[in-house]
């Protein structure tokens, strides 16, 4: 019965101090929306870098007249093929013939290839490692270069850079999320503090009339919870709308294979809501104790 009284008192207060309540809800909403956005984007980027890592390939370029003095022979190609087939770090590999290489070149740079009398491009094996982090090991397994192999490249810089970027992005995401979380919490707590402070006369009267501390505190804490809940629910709804409406528009321009995904939506939503309940209740309770010594 007490609980019902507190709840009705809380809603009465919310209605009576509408502008403050709306301010609190808006604060929560903005904070949570940004946080949700950040989490979504951050986890998407991480997934993307994972994907890019998969694209790292090792290229085994065979000799041509120009590079080694003579073309590579079929036996030598076969030797390399056997090598790769028995390498546990190699997931798959495919042969790119000179002709295929030239066709690809013609497609990408027609002006350069128009004048060629002969095909200067080498044939190659494109090797995809099982684990993107072991690209270097795969390349190393072909050292020293077998007969007929001109060079082995693996976009060394690209690999390093991608790994670096991935780490940096991961760090930024983590730090950013923490900062946003702290900022949201502070904002919410501040809004609550302002609302309680502006009603200190009311609280004084309540105490004079003989209300116990919890009798005064409970409705305020409930108010904090309700505002937090309302704000985060609306934020979740907005994020949902953004996901359904805005995302297809943006993503249409970016190639995005299926394996890239942000964290599952319900998980994010749940996190937001729980954070808010906690901040709302605890924030109000602490604020009242500190400011009003009740």
């Amino acid at each position, binding site marked *: 019965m*007490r609980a019902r009284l507190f709840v009705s008192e809380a809603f009465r207060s919310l209605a*009576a101090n509408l502008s403050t309540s709306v301010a609190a809800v808006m604060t929560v909403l903005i904070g949570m929306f940004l946080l949700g956005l950040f989490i979504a984007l951050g986890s998407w980027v991480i997934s993307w870098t994972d994907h890019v890592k998969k694209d790292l390939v090792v290229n085994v370029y065979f000799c041509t007249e120009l590079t080694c003095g003579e073309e590579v022979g079929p036996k030598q190609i076969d030797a390399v093929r056997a090598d790769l087939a028995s390498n546990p770090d190699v997931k798959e590999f495919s042969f790119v013939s000179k002709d295929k290489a030239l066709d690809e070149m013609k497609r990408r740079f027609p002006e350069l290839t128009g004048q060629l009398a002969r095909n200067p491009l080498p044939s190659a094996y494109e090797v995809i490692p099982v684990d993107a982090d072991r690209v270097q090991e795969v390349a190393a397994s072909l050292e020293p270069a077998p007969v007929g192999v001109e060079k082995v490249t693996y976009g060394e810089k690209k690999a390093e850079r991608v790994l670096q970027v991935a780490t940096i992005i991961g760090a930024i995401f983590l730090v950013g999320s923490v900062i946003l979380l702290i900022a949201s919490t502070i904002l919410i707590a501040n809004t609550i503090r302002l609302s309680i402070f502006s009603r200190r*006369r*009311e609280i*004084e009267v*309540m105490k*004079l*009339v*003989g*209300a116990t501390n919890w009798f005064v505190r409970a409705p305020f804490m409930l108010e904090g919870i309700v505002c937090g809940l309302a704000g985060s629910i609306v934020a979740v709804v907005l994020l949902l709308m953004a996901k359904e409406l805005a995302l297809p528009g943006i993503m249409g321009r970016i190639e995005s294979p299926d394996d890239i995904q942000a964290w599952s939506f319900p998980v994010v939503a749940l996190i937001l809501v729980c954070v808010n309940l906690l901040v709302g209740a605890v924030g109000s309770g602490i604020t009242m104790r500190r400011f009003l010594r009740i």
Partner: protein
Amino acid sequence: MLNGGDGDGMLTTAATEEPLGTPPAPGGTPMIVFAAVTKVYDPNVVALREASFVIEKGEFVFLVGPSGSGKSTIMRLLLKELDPTDGRILVGGRELARLKGSKVPMLRRNIGCVFQDFKLLTDRTAYENVAYALKVQGESKRDIRSKVPEILALVGLGAKMNNHPHELSGGEQQRVSIARAFVNHPPLLICDEPTGNLDPDTSVGIMQLLYRINRTGTTVVMATHDREMVDKMRKRVIALEDGTVMRDERRGGYG
């Protein structure tokens, strides 16, 4: 409802006796006991200096004195908003010093208080303001629904139950305050300059109300500046100056 019956005893002049004075009940537990109570604020501001007095149940007592003489300090000590630096205070036979923090709300529910600035909750109606005092006690909605209109009618605001404080005159607001203070029929009513913000005519009405409340057996202690009223009513007067009790007279005047 308010002006009927028992003769406006308080409007007698000094020459005639107060016909309906309530003599104290000897032998019963006093309502209030102040025993050499001293209150010092930091730094070294002495608000009350060894104040001693005893107020019996059912008395009507004026606390008079200039600003800063200690009247408000006494009020706050009674409500345990402050604790004395020295001395003992007993309310209803209970030593305030021994009262735990969690029991203070209980104390306050047994003391009705009325202030100069009314101290109403501005976003609630007159009804809701009085009802709050009952809610705090855990009274049921049914009890509230019967008690509140009754007390508001008693103070003359039956028709204005659903008005907010800003829709009421000063005198009416003070009546709401008194209704709230009295709805629980507490044994003690303390008033800190209740007519301070009111014009003389309205003040008379308020005083009549407080007088009637006193007649029901409620002890009333009132701090006031209002010289005229004190002289008219001829009740017990405790006069303070600079924190010291200068005078304590049975049928006192303002002095």
